[in-house]
């Protein structure tokens, strides 16, 4: 489609210190494209939380972003362990993050709740032992 831009990010868990770079990059691109600051903020927060989740819990994955004049769609796909209990994972404060990254401020358990809050639409597909795909849409206003 001519009015769509596709961006792809390989999120590696090899170097934890690079976690968050993909969202940072997308944020700058959207700013350059003149997307409204409000939309940019929502997209970058939703994407950031999703990206960090992928690094911490799923050993990385691929994020594909589609930008149209109407909306931004992010598809975060990983081959991680899957989410055993989605309702529990969506609870504010619930976290399975390891101890060594809590000192960096992660593990507050607000990742998934924030992703839901900042996106207009969110869908989680998960299978234990296979992986998880999170799809989020933010409307451009």
């Amino acid at each position: 489609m001519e009015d769509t831009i596709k961006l792809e990010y390989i999120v590696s868990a090899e170097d934890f210190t690079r976690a968050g770079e993909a969202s940072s990059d997308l944020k700058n691109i959207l700013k350059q494209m003149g997307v409204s600051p409000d939309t940019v903020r929502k997209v970058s927060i939703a994407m950031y939380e999703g990206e960090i989740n992928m690094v911490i819990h799923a050993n990385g994955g691929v994020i594909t972003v589609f930008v149209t004049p109407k909306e931004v769609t992010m598809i975060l796909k990983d081959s991680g362990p899957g989410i055993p209990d989605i309702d529990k994972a969506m609870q504010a404060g619930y976290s399975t993050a390891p101890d060594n990254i809590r000192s960096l401020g992660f593990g507050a358990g607000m990742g998934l709740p924030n992703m839901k809050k900042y996106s207009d639409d969110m869908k989680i597909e998960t299978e234990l032992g296979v992986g998880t795909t999170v799809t989020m849409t933010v409307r451009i206003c």
Partner: protein
Amino acid sequence: MNTLNTKFFHSVYLDESLCKGCINCIKRCPTQAIRVRNGKARITSQFCIDCGECVRTCSHHAKKIHIDSLDILNDYTYTVALPAPSMYAQFNNLDDVNILLTALIYLGFDDVFEVGAAAELVSEASRKYVDTHQEQWPFISTACPSVVRLIRVRFPNLIDHLLPILPPVEVAAQLARKRAMAKTGLPADKIGIIFISPCPSKVTYVKSPLGTDHSAVDGVLAVKDVYPLLLPHMKIAEQRPMDLAISGRIGIGWGCSGGEAGGMITDSYLAADGIENVIRVLEDLEDEKFARLQFIELNACSGGCVGGVLNVENPYVAKAKIKRLNKYLPVARTHSEDIPLKIELNWNKAVEYEPVFQIGETVLESINKMKQIDSLCNEFPGLDCGSCGAPSCRALAEDIARGKAEKNDCVYILRNHIHLLSETYSRFSHEAIVDGEDPNACIHMLMNYMDKLTEEIALLDSHNLINTDSDSEEGKHYDD
């Protein structure tokens, strides 16, 4: 400049014209380095670790810090500002670090190199070093120069645990200099690398570094001096900020206590802040109470660098601001493989024990002096009142043993002395035998005893607290 001066150079100094000779700073100094002598609270150079507690405490603003002014920019053709990460938290409503960095350019710098970016490189190198040197666990962070100086004079057993990696300010300076030289082709002496510091400790580090011979930093400005000058520039920078920021969560997090430990990405760490707490941790560490830890972060200032005495914002408010700045930042944005310039991050000079607190030259001499100290302590009232100019009775006893003070400096000893005197003379007035033959015998005897009395009371005048305007050796331990 003789070796004593460079080894114990200090940026903290006393402005005698403002000093009232009160005892507030002598009580707060963590190394008991200050004494009130001749009415002024002077710092003993070898004991001072530049932590800045005295600067914080002094209500007369008599304790000052040698720091450069913005005029230093005129000394160089090309200048690079090195803002410390804690500086980002000094401003209200700062959402984008680029605004601050752009404002620094408007202020007059030619370029900016974030100390936070160098901090990420230091964290990276530290993780590798700690991983490959397990036999030296726990490692103690060496970013806070006051902590390193404290360990150097008081905790020699911990010197082997010091992490021998240059602090972020030094790494930033070296990289900034290399980058500036490559970019401009100017010789080193025309390039000014200027650090904007939260504390006096780092000023001292620049003039007299530990772990390396010479610092690549040319000058140091205080955050509190630069802050008001930046505000108008930031208003303009807000319209179109330049894209200069390259620090991530780890780099900016270094500004708070726990940030450096966070960069180690381990849960086997301890982070302590505030000089008294640091001393407690070091004491316990010496007693090997927590050998299982990998890394120990120590900050002389409460809250970490945000609590530095040259910062303007309340350290805990600043901490909250840093947390907000960091919230959606990538974990790190500066990685060694991305930097084309290569520099050596390891120390090239070991830190050596300086036994400044040693009482005697030999063990035998020390034993004798210790006995002397103990017996003196028994004579002193144990009130730690500070009237003698020393922070505690024991400190006065030690000063006497070192030949730096006298027993009569203690007001209570002096008072007892005078009581004794008045008892003697009162006895005399009842028991004296006068030669009946000599008509002037009474007068002579009286004059004799009056002279003696005056002599003894004159001892009160030689007491340290009274300002006699005479010069003292201490406090003048550096070249200007």
